[in-house]
């Protein structure tokens, strides 16, 4: 049977990690959960999650929704790192 070009899933579920040359890494000890990175991400590659185990500037931030980068979908544009007012996102070069 012929291989047909059918796609049932949207592209957001596909793995795009090979498109990156560098990836954003969040330093949660500086992250105030302001969600500016989440708003600016042009590819909806940042989720907001509540995880009390994540580091935080102080205890009161731990209960808030924190950004979590979907590395399967992030293409490494670096906009989140540029926009973060607290310098909490560093772009780290990808190794092949």
């Amino acid at each position, binding site marked *: *049977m*012929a*291989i*047909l*070009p*059918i*796609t*049932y899933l949207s*592209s957001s579920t*596909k*793995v*795009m990690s*090979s498109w990156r040359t560098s990836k954003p890494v969040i330093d949660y000890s500086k992250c105030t959960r302001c969600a500016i990175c989440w708003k600016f991400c042009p590819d909806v590659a940042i989720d907001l999650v509540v995880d009390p185990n994540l580091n935080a500037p102080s205890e009161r931030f731990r209960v808030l929704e924190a950004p979590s980068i979907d590395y399967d979908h992030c293409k490494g544009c670096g906009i989140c790192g540029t926009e973060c007012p607290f310098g909490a996102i560093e772009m780290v070069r990808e190794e092949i």
Partner: protein
Amino acid sequence: MESIQSSRRIMTGNEAVATGVKLSNVKVISAYPITPQTTIVEKLAEMVANGELDAKYIEVESEHSAMASVTASEITGVRSYTASSSHGILYMHENLHWASGMRVPIVMSVVNRAIGPPWSIWGEQTETFNQRDTGWLQIYCESNQEAMDSIILGYKIAENKKVLLPVMNMLDAFTLSHTSEPVDVRNLKTSYDYLGDLDLDFKLDFKNPAGYGSLVAPDGPFMEMRKDMRDSMYNASGLIKSEISNFNEVFDAELPGLTENFMMEDADYALITAGAISSTAKYTVRKLRERGQKVGLIRLYFYRPFPGEEILKAVRGLKGLGVVERNVSYGQRGPTFEDVVSALYRRADVPIRNYVVGLGGRDIRVKDYEKMFENLIEGDNDMEWINVAVR
């Protein structure tokens, strides 16, 4: 087997094609008129208007849209048809790739006409030889009978799940398209039963949405799809041959195989042709045979998939083979010449020469074929332009 009723009628090639479309139970027709294809779609529009053919006729603003329309209708599971010529085919080129890549088994007729400039409406096959790498099967017809039968056969082969690629059916401008010949019109019920309903494994369905042909990453199944298309076409020869035998039995028809060998049994010299110009070549072969010259003809019925094995079998023992092209390629020899050489490479020791004929509708006469055979026998390695006023 039950008696097969065909009714013999006098009709032009274009009328034969339109009748073939009707016999194939086509449900959607979309086309843009262009000389010399116009009377095909005119006839079909008339059939739809008077209720003779229960189909939807979509008028479009261009050939590009015509191909887009039939690709879309076919992928919803409805048998679809279009036709064009010359510049219309060139304008369609992008969507020809879409149709084959989407694996939609459309049949399209092409009335072969020259490409401008200078402007010309007459016969030449360059526009479809230009489309040989688009993933479409290609059939070149010699008669109006073949033009009708190849539509029905075309759908049968295209819709075979081992092929699932579109089929391009060629007939020569005016020589076939506007010339009347006796044609056996196949029985409608026999034809409907032979083709059955279009059965696609995947159809676009509003209730079950899916993307079709959308973006894949380099590690997605892109190369795999291309390989599958190539294999499906390349390995289709056996399947096509048995389908032609089946067709001939069902309809009491006389379609050739992938190629037709004419007086090739003991031939020393032979030509290869495609399309209506083959009839004049056959007449010449018969005439030269009467004079005692051992000559023959191989006619390409299918050009894609290329019948390399058939040609190899037919040319063994030949002292010379001439490939006649009614098309032109500027930076190399002709495309058929290249294909033949590639098929015979290291497998048959036959000198091969290339003849360019009949561009822009120029006549190809018996004396031209005689000249080609003469050249073949005397031996001269140059590509020869036949019946041309410049050296």
